[in-house]
């Protein structure tokens, strides 16, 4: 990690003895006093819980244990085996991946398109940037409500609009094959943050590169492909990772629109919108199966790590770091 190396530029005395002697200095203790909130928080709210979570994932910890009716039993790999047995795990993983694959590229493509338009817009950019950014500040619960009513297949305005141009829209919120696209569309709508990041990256491309390319007679498309894309690839890569992690953890929109405590049999919601994070929440807090839910959390952690690692490896090939030796 580059930034850790950057920190290393601070002159540090070599050798264990001199390292230890650092603890005798007053500055060290002051530094740790400043760090105390985070160190305490890390131990109590992150590291400790991680260890407990790992332990719980090998036990049958649940409502009986929490209420003190029964003892906790270790169950070996039972919870991890259940990850394989439970058909809903495969279903929720599939749902989450399908959604991620639609939402991440969709958001990046639309955000990049808007950013390019804004860059060209010059004097007018500020006004339109404000407009395009507005969906980003809409709370996810509100987005979930909008999903339900804008996209209703019969009375929703989306299908009314589509019918104006002669398209019979699908039953977005009732058809299981359209539920994930609907949620992804609402995320693309809220692409303002990604757009601003990419816009900043576009402004960071040195003008002289374009001038040089124009002198070589490069077409607009070639300038985009050979100058813009490589130069903004770090920002694209950053957005890609951030959006992927967000998609894997997606909860609030889908939960608001398709799940809840409604009494009319809607309790467990629509399986087409059952994302991994929602199922984990249900296992932990609807059924209080904490052992299984902990195992689910560690599977999610592993998936996040693998996906990020793959992203980083792929980025080595495609991401161009200005002024870096990589």
């Amino acid at each position, binding site marked *: 990690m580059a930034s850790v190396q950057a*920190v290393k530029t601070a002159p540090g005395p070599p050798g264990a003895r001199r390292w230890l002697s650092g603890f005798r200095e007053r500055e060290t203790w002051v530094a740790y006093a400043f760090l105390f909130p985070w160190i305490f928080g890390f131990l109590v709210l992150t590291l400790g819980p991680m260890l407990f979570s790992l332990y719980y994932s090998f036990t049958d910890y649940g409502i009986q244990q929490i209420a003190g009716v029964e003892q906790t039993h270790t169950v070996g790999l039972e919870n991890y085996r259940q990850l394989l047995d439970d058909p809903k795990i495969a279903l929720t993983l599939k749902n989450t991946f399908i959604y991620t694959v639609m939402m991440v590229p969709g958001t990046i493509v639309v955000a990049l398109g808007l950013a390019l338009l804004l860059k060209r817009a010059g004097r007018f950019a500020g006004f339109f940037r404000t407009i395009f950014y507005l969906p980003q500040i809409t709370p996810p619960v509100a987005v979930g409500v909008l999903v339900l009513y804008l996209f209703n297949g019969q009375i929703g305005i989306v299908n009314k609009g589509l019918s104006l141009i002669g398209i019979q829209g699908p039953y977005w919120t009732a058809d299981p094959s359209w539920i994930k696209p609907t949620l992804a569309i609402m995320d693309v709508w809220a692409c303002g943050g990604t757009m601003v990041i990419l816009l900043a990256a576009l402004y960071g491309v040195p003008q002289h590169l374009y001038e040089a390319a124009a002198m070589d007679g490069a077409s607009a498309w070639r300038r985009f492909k050979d100058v813009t894309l490589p130069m903004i690839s770090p920002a694209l890569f950053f957005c890609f990772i951030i959006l992927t992690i967000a998609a894997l953890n997606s909860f609030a929109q889908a939960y608001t629109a398709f799940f809840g405590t409604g009494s*009319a049999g809607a309790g467990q919601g629509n399986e087409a919108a059952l994302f991994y994070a929602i199922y984990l929440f249900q296992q932990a807090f609807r059924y209080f199966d904490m052992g299984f839910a902990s195992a689910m*959390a560690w599977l999610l952690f592993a998936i996040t790590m693998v996906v990020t690692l793959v992203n980083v490896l792929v980025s080595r090939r495609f991401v161009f770091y200005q002024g870096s030796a990589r």
Partner: protein
Amino acid sequence: MTAGGQENQPPAIAAGAGPRGLPQVLRGGWGRMPQPSAKDIPFIALLLGLSVLFIYPFLWLISASFKPRGQTFDNALIPHDWHWNYTGPKHPSPDPQYLFNVGPVGDWMWNSIWISLLGGILVTFSSAMVAFAFAYFRFPLRNLLFAILLGTLMLPPQVTMIPVYLLWNHIGKFTIEHSWLPHIGTGTQYPLWVPNLFGSAFYIFLQRQFFMGIPRDYFEAARMDGDSYWTMFWRIAVPLAKPALIVTFIFEVQAKWFDLLNPLIYLRDEVTFTAPLGLKTLVDRFNATGGGVGDFQVIMAGTVLIVLPMLLLFALFQKYFIQGISTQGRKG
């Protein structure tokens, strides 16, 4: 997270540099609409067309919230009959309901407001302390601790969610058994803001960049004058890093205002709910699939109510929203 290679460069909004280094569009502010020239017109038309797509859901929502029961989904931009759905006399259902009568909506809004503000303030200052330590001091284990800090950014919240919940549960049991203690634990609002006392990795990382942009001479001069480390932090670092602190504050206010999962896990009594959880409760109660009571106009009014404060925050702090976001990509 650290794909860049330029971490040592302070972002453009770091102390002293000010927003001048950024193009106008990234500096924020509402932006003015200048007189378009003839060749701009098709281009402006395209942007305006796109703007309609981005704005229309808001207009639809506001319009729907002012329609009487039964007309909520007629999709008319201007309501045929205007109807105030927020407050009114209390009649039992089946009469059309008013938002503030169907639940403790005032409590929900107030809870969200104070939890967001308090959480924002706490995390800003706790993160600033830690960020300052990482930026200014040299001490053993610094690199290791900073690497751990960056590592926690990768951790899905679900991994710690359950044990942290159980921790609060234990605290709650303890405070119930010892009745001289105030009741802290699950079912109270403490779990929503107390973690903000301990800083947050993302904000620490963001602020450290700003603190590193402050010339070391400032601090050396202060030390010559015999100032304490706290004075250096409070009187020099914090004022100079004000833009970063404001960014932290508004990001956290937004995060708290958006949060559904934590209130859902920790809160049980309707009066303690935050606005998103309150709205979710109303959706469950009045939605067709959740019992079918059909007072959709109440859901619409409630949605407007939780969107508006964010619009207000954005209007006031747009500059910081845009700058905060646009620097993220650079540091990444």
